[in-house]
Each structure stands twice: as C-alpha cells, then as structure tokens.
C-alpha cells in the first residue's frame, strides 16, 4: 500500500478503501487528492495519523470540487501540470447534496477527475439519508414508521446531471470491480476536462450487512440492475456491464438491515414492487439484460 492505507481507521469490509486504493494505483500515485468532510476524511486524515502517500487536502464539507479547480488552475499557472492529476474523492452527501460547487467545475470544465464514493447515505455520522440514498431505504432521518417506510424520494441521477453539463467522461463502477475502477480512472486521466466517476461502495455498518457479504451484496446490486455499471464518452454510452439471468431485487434487499422493514408489511411489498420496477427500467434504459 504505497499511496493509501497505513493506519487508516475504516471498518473491516469497508467499500471505500477498496475503491480508493484502486483509484490511486491506477494513477500511480501521481495525483493531488481533494477530500471533503466525510467517512474517508475521518478514517484517513487525523492530525499525526495521515494515511496518505500522495498530496492531500481537506477543506470543508461543501467545496471539494472548487478546491480541486483551484489546484488544477494553480498547476497550470505555475507550469506544474506534469506533477499529476487532480482527483476529488467525495462521499455521496458531499457530492449530491451539499457540494454544489460541482456544477461550477463541470460548467467551466476544469481538468479534474471527480470521484463520488457512493455508500448511499451519511454513514460517518450514523446513516442519515442523502440525495443518493435509494427509494425505500430506512435511514435515521427517513426511518421506517407506521405511515412512512423509509426514504420516499428517488435516488438522484448524478450521471444524468454530469452528462447534461457536457462532461467529457462519465462512468459508474463498484468497489467489487477493482479492475473496472482502474480501467475507468486510467481512461479518465487521459481525457482533458471535468470527469465524473461514481463508485458504489458497500457500507457494513450503515447498510447492516455482514463483513463477509460485502462482495456478494455489491455484486447483487449489479446483478439486479439496481446499480447499472455504465460508461459515457463525450455524452455517448460506450460500455454497459451486461447481466445474464438478472436476479429479482429481493435477493439484494433481504441481505441488508436498511431494507429489512420492507419484508414485514403489505406496504413494504408495494415498495419492493416499485424497486423492482426501477431495476427493470434501468435494465431497459441501458440494455443490461444479456439475451440468451
């Protein structure tokens, strides 16, 4: 672990650390990491216990994209662009909720690789809902109750938002696909402009899964088409991870405490049906099903 890891405080089985290690390996450590407040920051950057082997900056919760733009522009002004790529490693809340400086980065198309480590809630502070929390998930701020059954809104489509900004490279990946992460990050690093990669990162404590099931659960998100693995270059869909014999969403949901409430009431059944509809829609939209 040359670039990340020594002394970090992540939970055993944490998806973030797998993703981060692969991102840094893909860039061969030639990068500047900008990391907003969140899980990754807390587990890696305590004063005196820095786990980073690359230049690292944490400023605030809500400004990582802008800080990255500043580094990228400074390197240009100072003639130091060869030193490395500027990479944001941000959580889903810092990306889709509070971190709106992302839009300025896309708009002005600064040379930044923005990576959203999507564990689908504010997990560092104990599992509060974010814009990337999926429909039906129980969090501490969208709990399952007698009349509400977890988050009743949608998961924000950040991929569409990045594409709408004209981002030259937009992709999704998963912590359970290390080779896919490395390939996509390498590809992004050879494209000029503001790139967006969203990586699904299972969270043992927040999702309520067994540490040994991280890979299984991560794979099920892909095999049910709830987390489409896609890649766009200049707005064109260029690759989709296909699935043979797509699995019903129950198989994914039933392994996780965050969806447990859906299996104990008739209303939960309706929500599962709606989640299945979302998966079917994803499969259709991206042509995920591999025809026999």
């Amino acid at each position: 672990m040359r670039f990340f890891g020594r002394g970090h405080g992540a939970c055993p089985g944490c998806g973030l650390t797998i993703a981060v290690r692969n991102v840094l390996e893909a860039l061969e450590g030639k990068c500047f990491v900008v990391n907003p407040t969140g899980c990754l920051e807390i587990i890696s950057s305590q004063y005196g216990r820095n786990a980073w082997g690359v230049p690292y900056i944490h400023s605030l919760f809500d400004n990582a994209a802008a800080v990255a733009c500043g580094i990228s522009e400074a390197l240009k002004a100072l003639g130091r662009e060869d030193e490395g790529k500027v990479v944001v490693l941000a959580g889903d809340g810092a990306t889709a909720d509070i971190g709106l400086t992302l839009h300025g980065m896309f708009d002005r198309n600064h040379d930044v690789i923005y990576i959203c480590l999507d564990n689908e809630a504010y997990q560092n502070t104990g599992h509060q809902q974010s814009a990337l929390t999926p429909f039906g998930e129980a969090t501490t701020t969208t709990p399952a109750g007698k009349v509400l059954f977890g988050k009743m809104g949608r998961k924000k489509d950040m991929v569409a938002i990045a594409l709408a900004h004209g981002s030259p490279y937009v992709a999704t990946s998963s912590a359970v696909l290390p080779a896919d992460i490395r390939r996509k990050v390498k590809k992004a690093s050879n494209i000029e402009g503001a790139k967006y990669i969203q990586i699904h990162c299972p969270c043992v404590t927040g999702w309520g899964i067994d540490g040994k099931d991280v890979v299984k659960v991560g794979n099920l998100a892909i095999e049910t088409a709830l987390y489409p693995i896609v890649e766009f270059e200049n707005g064109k869909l260029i690759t989709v991870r296909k699935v043979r014999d797509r699995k019903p969403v129950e198989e994914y949901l039933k392994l996780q405490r965050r969806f447990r409430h859906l299996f104990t009431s008739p209303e939960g059944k309706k929500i599962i049906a709606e989640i299945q509809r979302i998966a079917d829609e994803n499969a259709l939209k991206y042509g995920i099903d591999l025809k026999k």
Partner: protein
Amino acid sequence: MKKVVRGFYSVAYSVKLCRPNVICAYPITPQTEIVENLATMYANGELENCRYITAESEFAAASILVGASAAGARTFTATCSQGLILMSEVLFNAAGMRLPIVIVNTNRALSAPLSIWNDLQDSMALRDAGIVQVYVENNQEAHDMVPQAYRIAEDKRVMLPFMICMDGFKLTHAYEPVDLLEQDVVDSFLPPYRPEVYLTTKKPLAFGCYAPPHVYMEFRVAMQRAMERAKDVMEKVFKEWAEISGRDWGGHLEIVYPDSKNFVIAMGSLVGLLRKVVDELRSEGFSIGLVKLRTFRPFPAEELRKNLGSAEKIIVIDRSFSCGYEGNLSIELKSALYGTNPEVISFILGLGGRDIPKDFIKELLRNSILGREKSGFKGFKEFEEVIP
C-alpha cells in the same frame, strides 16, 4: 505616474503589479469593476503566469483560492457584503490552514433590508476569522496597500489571509489622482511567493487534517501567535513602504495633533472628512485631535492605550454595531483602554450609505466636547413599522 483613476482601477492595477497566479471572483456591487478591470487585463494577455476564473458564487471563488493557495499560487479576490459572508465558511477555514489569500472588501451594508450602499458591517462580521484587516482612507492608500498586503500575509511569521477594506462607492467609484506604482518598484519590494509547504507530488503532505481535542487548541493558539507577530511585521513593512514609495501612511494608527485633550477616532474614508472637521474645530478653540485606525486585526490595543490613555474624552465614530450591544470599534477601544481614565462617547452613523454631512458631524463633536451629547445612533429618524 500620476493618473486620475477610479478606486476600482487603483486596486486592479496594483494587483496586476503583484503578479498573482490565480484570480477568482464573483461579481457584486460595488466590487465588480475591480475584477472587470482584471478580466480585461487577462483578456489582453497582460497577466503573466496567471489564471483568471469567474466562479459561480463567492463561496466557490474563495474555495478555488483555497486550492490554488495550498498548491503554492499567489491568489486574489475581491468581494463585499453578502459575498463576504457567503465566503465566510471558507475564509475561517483558509485562516486555519494559514493560506495567505489577499482579499479586497469594498465595504457594503448587510441585508435585510437589502442595501448596496456603504457601511462597515460586512468586514466586522469576519472580525474573529483570523484574517488581517486594514482599512484605507483613499484610493492611493488602497493602491499602496496591495503589495504590502502580500508581503505581510506571505511572511512566514504570519501566513494568514489579508483583507484590505475600502469603502464601497465612497472610494470604489470615486475618481482621484493616484500615483500608480512602477513594476520594478513592486518587484523589488515583493518577491515571488515561495511557501515553505505546499501541495506537491514531490513531497506529499496533508493539508486540513482534523484535530481531536488533544491537538485542536494548539492550532488555534498558533493563529493568535501569528496575529501577534503580524503586528511587528506590519510595522516594519509599513516603514519600508514609506521609504521606497515616499508615502508614509503611518503605523497601525495615524495620530493627528497628538497633544490634544480630546480625540475623535474612526476608520476608512470617513477619516478624510474628519481631518477637515478637526481643523475647523481647532480654529474655534477646541483641543481636539484625530486618530485614524488603520489596522483593526491584529488590534493595536497597546498603541491606543499609550497614545490615548491620558486623554480627557474620546469620541468613537462607528459605521457598524454588534446588535444587542454597541458600535464595534467602540467595544474594542473600551476594552483596550480598560483601567485608564478617558471618557468614551460612541456614535453609530452612516449605516447603509446614510450621508454623514460635515456640519452634522462637526456639531456632534462640538457638543460632545461640551458635554451636551450622549452615545448612541445619530442621524436617523424614528418611524413606525409593522415590526416596531
């Protein structure tokens, strides 16, 4: 080279001479023309080794400069009012990270009610941020202050953001003759920015680590120590500036008629008017001097105590106040003078651009010396509102 220019240009031209690497701002009245001037210079290729970015908000502008400054760039922004307080989360952070960002704040009132006009409430709201604050009297002083700001902020004994406060409209929009500096003068005074630590892959370091209770306090105390050191650094830089430019703006204070019994103290462009008023009152036989407070942070408490501790009466003119207490400068001055004898009378005037006519302030000062005036808000009318 003396030219008649507006306040905007006096600042923008001086910024250019300081060779910034990253300029980033968001337009806001009455600051906009500063960055418009810089944008024009950028569009004409007059800014070398520089990137100019129009951000999507002041919050983003300040954040971009945090990244740029941490990467070793010399940075500049201008803002005011709502823009400054939108930046505030970032600016507190930048000060804690010890990034020497230079900001020109064209002082403007805060909403609500919305007002684009001048008072000092905006920069006062950033009083505790760990940012050096200097208030200028005129556009020549604003022009001269920019290179000094970089020298002081980037001094390794200081390493804090620096905010030059100039009155919105009253200075920004005013045409004044300004002796524009020559590039070689600025180059000889201000070396290129070479920070001891910055983000580089050659020597990876972590910026902005979080601090548990066993180390947080040490970082905050270090900021205070840097502010205390800044006092000496600033005095030396002010003196050096006087020598090379031939313009001596004084130290943290400028005191006119130091042997007077009574003093009036103020900041910013109002000092220009008070010079005239004090002269007229003296010709009427009143013993009154003038204190121009240039540095508000670090606060020159010892200098004030030394120079004003034995005065009879001190009249403070504030253009901002701490709602629920009193005028901001008045609070600071009373604290500095604690244990000495002068009577302090404090007035809050001119909020939201309310005019401060010469005769009005002369009458206030005259009556104060004669013991006929009480502290408080002056120059406003009581009126009935829905919320009284």
